[in-house]
């Protein structure tokens, strides 16, 4: 038997880490631990993006998800939990139903994937390279993405202002003991 190419070995290692991290994320009792398991999943999917030659998306994954979203989540968990709180557990019945749906989706996935014919990678010269992404994002031609780019910037600004407005406590309704 031929030795597997390095890329395949890396892919399988990444896939195993990703699935294990995801399983840990949904099964550990402590929410903080599941946020930390989520870092493993995000990091291994960043590695997968690198394997698929999407370097910029991989870097964005690490910066936005691990550097931003997970930090958000950890801060929110720390702000919303108190010591000695027992972890919330779902009933056994609900767990069985959820596992059934998850299995159903996996079975459907396997059935669907058998229909897809095997393809070889396109391997274009500048596949999703930093330069081509930068040019496309800010190009005003027909194939450019300047309009969605500006729209998403506006969306980010609006949602950040919205988040601050939602979580802001007006001075007069501050709970007692809160300085």
């Amino acid at each position, binding site marked *: 038997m031929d030795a597997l190419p390095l890329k*395949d070995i890396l892919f399988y290692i990444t*896939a195993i880490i*990703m*699935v294990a991290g*995801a*399983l840990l*994320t*949904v099964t550990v009792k402590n*929410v903080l631990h*599941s946020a930390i398991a*989520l870092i493993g*999943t995000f990091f291994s*999917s960043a590695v*997968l993006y690198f394997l*698929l030659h*999407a370097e910029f*998306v991989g870097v964005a*994954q690490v910066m936005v*998800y691990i550097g931003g*979203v997970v930090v*958000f*989540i950890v801060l*929110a968990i720390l*702000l*919303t939990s108190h010591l000695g709180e027992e972890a*919330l557990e*779902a009933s056994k019945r*609900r*767990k069985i139903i*959820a596992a059934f749906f*998850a299995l159903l*989706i*996996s079975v459907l*996935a*396997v059935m669907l*994937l058998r229909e*897809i014919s*095997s*393809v070889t*990678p*396109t391997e274009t010269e500048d*596949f999703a*390279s930093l330069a*081509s*992404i930068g040019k*496309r994002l800010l190009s005003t031609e027909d*194939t450019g*993405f300047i309009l*969605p780019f500006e729209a*998403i910037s506006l*969306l*980010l600004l609006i*949602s*950040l202002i*919205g*988040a*601050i407005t*939602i*979580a802001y*406590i007006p001075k007069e309704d501050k709970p007692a003991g809160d300085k």
Partner: protein
Amino acid sequence: MTLQACLLLAFLLFAIGIYGMLTRRNAIAILISMELMLNAANINFIAFAHYKAVDATAGAVFAIFAIAATACEMAIALAIAIIVYRRHGFLDVDQLTELRDPDV
């Protein structure tokens, strides 16, 4: 490493996310499961861009927009989680029934 393997991985992540979403009772844990599902969608974008796309850069740009939209959504969702905790002192979705019609 084939297209099927990448898609299968994404489907598995999505199924795990569904399981987490249905079994968790803490609102933030449900958001975490949702992140897993969104991540699965992103993996699909990149896998199809790599294996099948005529225009692969557009596939990567799509994934970037999806990442930005996720960041927005998390900011709002966590702000809501914090204000709910401030008001009720818990984040158990089984007990958060303010918006439910009491007659039903």
